């Protein structure tokens, strides 16, 4: 029971182990506000401890100690938090010394941050005498932990650590629903075709007992009966064949459709997700999810489930038939079944491990390839061909060794299944002969039994596969639903405000942005007039690109608002809004296709005249004409065959063609040499004319045309003004400019990220 005075403000529930103990500590009227369970001691060994913040003091039980320590709020008390390499640390100081320190693994970080926040709030309230002002917080509805701008609660994320359950597969019903009638008919056909397949063995009974055995005993063969029975055999087989064909066709078709729907839906959803999502994912992983995982599900649905259902139906029907003919023999026949199934499962289990291992080793080999082929220039430059060959050889050798081991078990597998089946048959033979000798059953019955069981013993092998294939399909389904369950962090409004005539006035009001638990932008206020050109200046990491990303609405602001012509951009439809933005990036991306296609990317129905006009304005026309097929030349895969400057001009033409009201140049000229930069600059001057422009540039000289320069430092605007004003002020901009004029980086640590990469310069033809 929780006593009344233990009101818990944070919505989290106190861990059971600490509940009683902390309750006993609370003084009358004291309220427990938040807590942190630390799991490391000062020497970083695993041990449990507990920290509590109440409205009167900080309480701690350090790991390995028995008693509690307390620090009532007083002047000078400070709780510092930092983390390094997976270990978080809290340190309590006053003006004179360090009072205490606690360590925890990074999983507890959200709770620790909450504790520090609460501590600071309480301290402030105690020192100032004012009641606690609690800011409106974005908290996880489930556990009350702060969300820190993340979509997924870092605390609750732990619960998703469970391996994928096969129940995930049930969620595929959403995709199967449109095909439910086809599925229903498929199932009916499966039932009937399996039943038809049950007929031929049954007919062996009269064939034996009424035809062959009487004949051996001297009775002539009844031709009519034989014809009838044979016709029955043939007919049943024919029906089973026809029905099997139709059902396989229908169900495969449905499975293929479901797989295709799944792929398209996933890709469609993926395209809607914000950049934030892509930031945390590897391309290869996403490609695999949409490509091979959906294929795996499709295979599972069309082949494995179908086979398994058929097998189960067959097993049930066989059991019923066998029991109806002769219960005792049926019992003996089915008795070894579980045992055989278990044996098969055992071998298959080992085999599966081996196959999985082989899969993983295979990826090792492709890793060597993926590493070496794109880096072949470096390999050759350093004459390391033999070393790479050696690496490949080594990976291949491991592959060989693993496969050898798999093959050893694999080669044993089929003979083992056969052996088990034979043993099962042997048992039936023995018991059957005994029963025949006792006149309990006829020879025909025994023959029918043998015919039945050879059928399903061989199916046991394929049935045993269902466990692992289901597991695999569940994993695949889970990975796809991971994407589908993700909600875009920049949602489209339910009732978007229509954009009519865009003037291009951008207003940032007290904009703050946090990425994870890191504050990137704080209180940015800026109004950009239509047609104005703004240059963003600052060290890398000062928030320039983040600001631009917010204006493009790749992310949404954490606090404050961005307005276009007076309307909050969150009220506009995302696609509508972005149509008014032209973006030129540091490394232009060209899609696979012709130059013309690439220029017309943002406006697929542009006329050829428009494309040429845009290319001319971007100073790209002439070099495009020099290409072997002019505007129809193929480029792509990052525009190989075009130099950095040429690619950049294509991307400028692309931005020009959509004629946006707002233009964003993110380091548009920093990956090219000065000569090319001049050409690009000419193209850019055409582009900028009359548009609201926001330009980021490392080389301050490229921003000489800017109406105003905005200097950012650590997420805040520190100076605004034109070049001359800022130089006169001798502030942050002056220092940056001086440093560049001297051709020395202000601080190598901070600016090294912006030094243009050498490889790009030499890519020209």
């Amino acid at each position: 029971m929780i006593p009344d005075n233990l009101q818990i403000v944070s919505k989290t529930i106190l861990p059971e182990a600490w509940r009683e103990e902390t309750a006993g500590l609370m003084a009358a009227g004291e309220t427990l506000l938040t807590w942190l369970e630390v799991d490391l001691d000062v020497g970083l060994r695993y041990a449990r401890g507990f920290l509590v913040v109440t409205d009167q003091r900080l309480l701690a039980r350090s790991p390995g100690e028995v008693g509690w320590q307390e620090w009532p709020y007083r002047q000078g008390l400070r709780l510092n938090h930092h983390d390094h390499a997976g270990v978080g640390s809290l340190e309590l100081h006053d003006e004179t010394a360090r009072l205490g320190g606690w360590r925890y693994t990074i999983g507890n970080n959200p709770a620790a941050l909450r504790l520090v926040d609460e501590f600071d709030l309480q301290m402030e309230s105690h020192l100032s005498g004012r009641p606690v002002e609690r800011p409106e917080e974005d908290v996880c509805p489930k556990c009350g932990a702060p969300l820190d701008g993340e979509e997924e609660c870092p605390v609750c994320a732990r619960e998703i650590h469970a391996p994928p359950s096969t129940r995930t597969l049930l969620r595929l019903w959403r995709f199967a629903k449109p095909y439910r009638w086809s599925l229903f008919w498929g199932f009916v056909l499966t039932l009937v075709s399996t039943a038809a397949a049950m007929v031929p063995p049954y007919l062996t009974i009269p064939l034996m007992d009424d035809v062959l055995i009487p004949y051996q005993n001297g009775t002539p063969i009844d031709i009519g009966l034989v014809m009838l029975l044979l016709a029955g055999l043939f007919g049943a087989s024919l029906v089973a064949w026809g029905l099997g064909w139709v059902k396989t066709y229908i169900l495969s078709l449905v499975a293929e459709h479901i797989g295709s729907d799944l792929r398209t839906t996933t890709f469609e959803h993926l395209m809607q997700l914000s950049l934030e999502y892509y930031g945390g994912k590897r391309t290869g992983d996403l490609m695999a999810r949409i490509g091979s995982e959906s294929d795996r599900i499709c295979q599972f649905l069309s082949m494995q489930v179908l086979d398994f259902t058929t097998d189960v139906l067959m097993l049930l029907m066989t059991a019923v038939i066998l029991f109806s003919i002769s219960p005792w023999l049926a019992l003996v026949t089915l008795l070894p079944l579980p045992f055989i199934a278990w044996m098969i499962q055992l071998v298959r289990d080992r085999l599966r491990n081996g196959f999985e291992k082989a899969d993983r080793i295979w990826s090792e080999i492709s890793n060597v390839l993926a590493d070496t082929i794109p880096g072949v220039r470096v390999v050759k430059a350093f004459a390391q061909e033999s070393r790479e060959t050696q690496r490949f050889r080594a990976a291949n050798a491991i592959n060989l060794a693993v496969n050898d081991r798999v093959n050893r078990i694999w080669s044993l597998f089929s003979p083992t299944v056969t052996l088990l089946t034979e043993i099962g048959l042997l048992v039936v033979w023995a018991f059957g002969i005994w029963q025949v000798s006792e006149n309990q059953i006829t020879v025909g019955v025994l023959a029918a039994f043998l015919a039945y069981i050879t059928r399903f013993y061989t199916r046991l092998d394929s049935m045993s596969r269902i466990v692992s294939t289901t597991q695999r399909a569940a994993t695949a389904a889970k990975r796809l639903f991971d994407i589908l369950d993700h909600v875009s962090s920049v949602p489209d409004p339910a009732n978007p405000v229509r954009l009519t005539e865009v003037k291009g006035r951008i207003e940032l009001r007290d904009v703050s942005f946090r990425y994870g638990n890191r504050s990137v932008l704080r209180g940015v206020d800026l109004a950009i007039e239509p047609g104005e050109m703004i240059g963003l200046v600052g060290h890398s990491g000062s928030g320039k690109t983040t600001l631009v990303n917010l204006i493009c609405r790749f992310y949404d602001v954490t606090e404050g608002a961005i307005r276009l012509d007076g309307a909050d951009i969150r009220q506009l439809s995302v696609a509508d809004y972005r149509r008014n933005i032209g973006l030129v990036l540091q490394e232009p991306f060209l899609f696979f296709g012709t130059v013309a296609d690439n220029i017309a990317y943002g406006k697929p129905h542009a006329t050829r005249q428009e494309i040429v006009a845009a290319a001319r304005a971007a100073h790209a026309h002439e070099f495009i004409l020099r290409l072997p097929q002019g505007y129809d030349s193929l480029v792509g895969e990052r525009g190989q065959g075009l130099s950095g400057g040429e690619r950049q001009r294509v991307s400028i033409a692309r931005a020009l063609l959509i004629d946006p009201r707002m233009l964003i140049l993110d380091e548009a000229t920093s990956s090219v040499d000065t000569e090319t930069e001049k050409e690009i600059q000419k193209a850019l001057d055409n582009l900028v004319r009359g548009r609201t422009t926001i330009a980021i540039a490392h080389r301050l000289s490229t921003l000489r045309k800017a109406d105003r320069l905005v200097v950012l430092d650590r997420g805040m605007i520190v100076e605004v003004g034109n070049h001359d004003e800022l130089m006169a002020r001798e502030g942050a901009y002056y220092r940056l400019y001086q440093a560049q004029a001297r051709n020395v980086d202000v601080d190598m640590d901070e600016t090294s990220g912006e030094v243009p990469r050498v490889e790009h310069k030499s890519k020209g033809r």
Partner: protein
Amino acid sequence: METTDFQLARNVFGRLVLTAADGTVCEGVVPVRAFPIAASGEGVALIGPDGHEAGWIERLEALPEVLRQLVEEELGRREFMPEIRRIHAVSSFATPSTWTVDTDRGETSLVLWGEEFIRRLGKSGLLVEDSHGIHFLVRDINGLDTASRKLLDRFL
């Protein structure tokens, strides 16, 4: 014995204070190993709070005893790479999987996101990264007991 061109001391706030040969004082330096896995005893940098290198130790064992103890104490407080001694159980062979392990720092559990988070170190060493980015070291697979090795083998 190597001579150092700096002095180290611990202040009341528990921070390391470095005094260079030229008399400049740097408060709150932290030791960082340059090769934490390949050669943990060689090359330890002392990084100041501004992120700049304030001192460099070529070899830890060549340091004067007092200094070495200070540095090792500080390293022990910062470095966190539990060494897996035994794997008790794994929740499943499909990832994400929760492992219950014995480490040199006590018993704990870790969540493995996927097989790709296990990195090979040399011939028989492994580095396992858990879902929070904490690295667990397996110094020598062959040094583990059979049960642990069998469990581990399913992920390799």
